[in-house]
């Protein structure tokens, strides 16, 4: 069974991105003092990217799709990429909760949750994970806060 290849999908996606970005250049504010418009460079870049995407599409269509040995399934893909998805999801959650939890607490929770999600799943390992989370983030937070003088997000739960 022959299906559309990933390269074709990416090439089409790139062409859509180029179209959206090119259209956006028409919305630029006009500045009279400027000798050459602010839109020149972006348009050149988008046009070149569009041409390359078209070439990529041509090459991908010409190469044809590889027949997949096993039909693609969402379940199998999720299983195969579960570590990566867990990391991205937990990192996203860490960013969303950062204003409330702050860098110290949020960082510790992020490290612990990620280790628990992708690492060994037994009591001893969880204790090790908790220790790693507290020590590693506590140490780095201290270095940045006290040694380098960086004010990291405090959050509302554990303000300094």
């Amino acid at each position, binding site marked *: 069974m022959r299906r559309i290849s990933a390269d074709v999908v990416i090439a089409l996606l790139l062409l859509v991105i180029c179209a959206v970005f090119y259209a*956006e250049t028409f919305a630029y504010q006009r500045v009279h003092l*400027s000798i050459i418009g602010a839109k020149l460079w972006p348009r050149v870049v988008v046009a070149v990217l569009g041409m390359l995407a078209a070439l990529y599409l041509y090459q991908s269509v010409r190469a044809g799709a590889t027949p997949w040995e096993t039909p693609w399934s969402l379940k199998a893909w999720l299983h195969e990429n*579960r570590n990566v998805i867990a990391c991205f999801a937990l*990192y996203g959650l860490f*960013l969303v909760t950062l*204003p409330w939890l702050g860098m110290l607490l949020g960082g510790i929770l992020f490290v612990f949750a990620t280790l628990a999600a992708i690492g060994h799943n037994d009591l001893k390992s969880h204790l090790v994970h908790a220790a*790693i989370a507290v020590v590693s983030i506590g140490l780095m937070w201290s270095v940045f806060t006290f040694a380098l003088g960086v*004010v*990291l997000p405090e959050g509302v739960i554990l303000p300094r």
Partner: protein
Amino acid sequence: MDVLENALLALQAVAHPHTFALMTIGVAAGLIAGAIPGFTITMAVVLTLPFTFGMDAIRGLSTMVAVFVGGLSGGLMASVLTGIPGTPSSVATTFDGHPMAKSGRPGLALGLGVWSSFFGGMISCAFLIMLAPSLANIGLEFGPWDYFSLVVFALTITASLAGKDMTKGLIAGVFGLLVASIGEDETSGVARFTFGIDDMRQGFAFLPVLVGLFAFSQLLSDIRDPKAAKKPMVMNQAKIKIEHLQAVKTIFRKWATLIRSSLIGIFIGILPGAGGTIANILAYDQAKKASDAPERFGTGVPEGIIAPESSNNAVEGGALITMMALGIPGDVVTAVMLGALLIHNIAPSPTFISTEPVLAYSIMIAFAISLFIMLGLQTVCLRIFVLVTRVQMYRLATVILAYCAIGIFALNNITFDLWTLFWFGIIGYAMRQFGFPLAPMILGVVLGNNAEINLIRALATDTDLMLFLTRPWSLFFILIAVFSFAFPWYQNLRTSRQWTLLFIPCLPLALSVPLFMMSGWVRPVVALALLAIGCWLLWRRHRSGWRLPTPAEVKVYGDD
């Protein structure tokens, strides 16, 4: 101020106990990062960047150079002891390093690697000190047309290194330019590609983009396989002692391999975008071809360790020559260093050495001193570095992900940078999965602003586009860009298409044209030499009856 005075000031700054301590930590961190399979040197240098914000430019750059030197040498430990390359720059070291270690000489294998790294680095350092100032004088001749063409050349050659996937390499490079153009235009203040999002008006900071693309995506790739992520990266090793004396004696006996490989490393380093990954394999290949007993390669011969290790360390000297003399990165690590310069408000340009001589000499001196620190640390702390590699990957990756967040926030103290890191982490991961090279994109992001400014300057001075072809340096870079663009086709078709026979002879012939257009007598003489080489190559083709090489000949003898 003269050269000596600048060099002395630089030495004073680098040899300061504080800087020296930072460099020692940097080399140690690099050795550890390099020893861990899956961790690239680039990632180690990228992760060092946030710690250098609070330092002055000399200390920051010296620390990053130290991490790089340590990383290059650390890669050999994993290669020799486990057979797994610690970094892509030490792939070829595994071919003979691991067999030698398995046959009971791990101390000699490590010694050969450590000392070859040292000598390779020192040779390239000597070239750096000799060549960079002379090349910098050439940089002073560049106008905006020339600099724009230089950027085009840098992007093209980096993309061409993607080989069969050159289109993907070019897309990545131009995508980098697009990312760099997001935010307010420097000259007019017009917001571009912000889609109404206020945070995007200032554009994407370089560091979150870089860390997201490289470090974030690399870490996630490393832990993708749940089983592999839970295993220790390197199993326990018995106590090993480096055989220094024997190693040095062996290297001196094989001096031709050392010199040849170091020169290959320097040359590859000078090419924008090419790095240790290519140099170590090319040097190994050349050492094998030059050997009286090529069949013994792969069984644990000393040349098989000397060649890749000296070349991958020599790369950095070459890359620094390009960075300092022309203002474009020689490899991804020097791209990060250019990013660090931007953070310290120093714009990378061909006038770097003349405008920042002390900083330039500091980088050169830091490079040399780091090699000595590396040698000392490898000798004293080898066992500790090996122990670190027993950590499970998922633990290390998770902690470093969190460190990325803290370090990135420290850059501008805004949460938007953390989101930039997140989104570019996803983009980087997707690019890796679908075979898009990341190096051209990084180059695009780093050079995008300079390319735009110089194009605008050129057009504001004169709208005649022919100036890009009539100015000698601009024409020179455009010609190399065209040849590097066509190179993958030449490589793939050289056994089947007649036109490929003209490709190599045409290169010196074409390059002689802009050199003839230049003033003085040296460059026209070089042009004459190129013309002679081109004609000689054509005559050779003619004498052999314009016969295409067979696939077997291409494999055995390589190229001209």
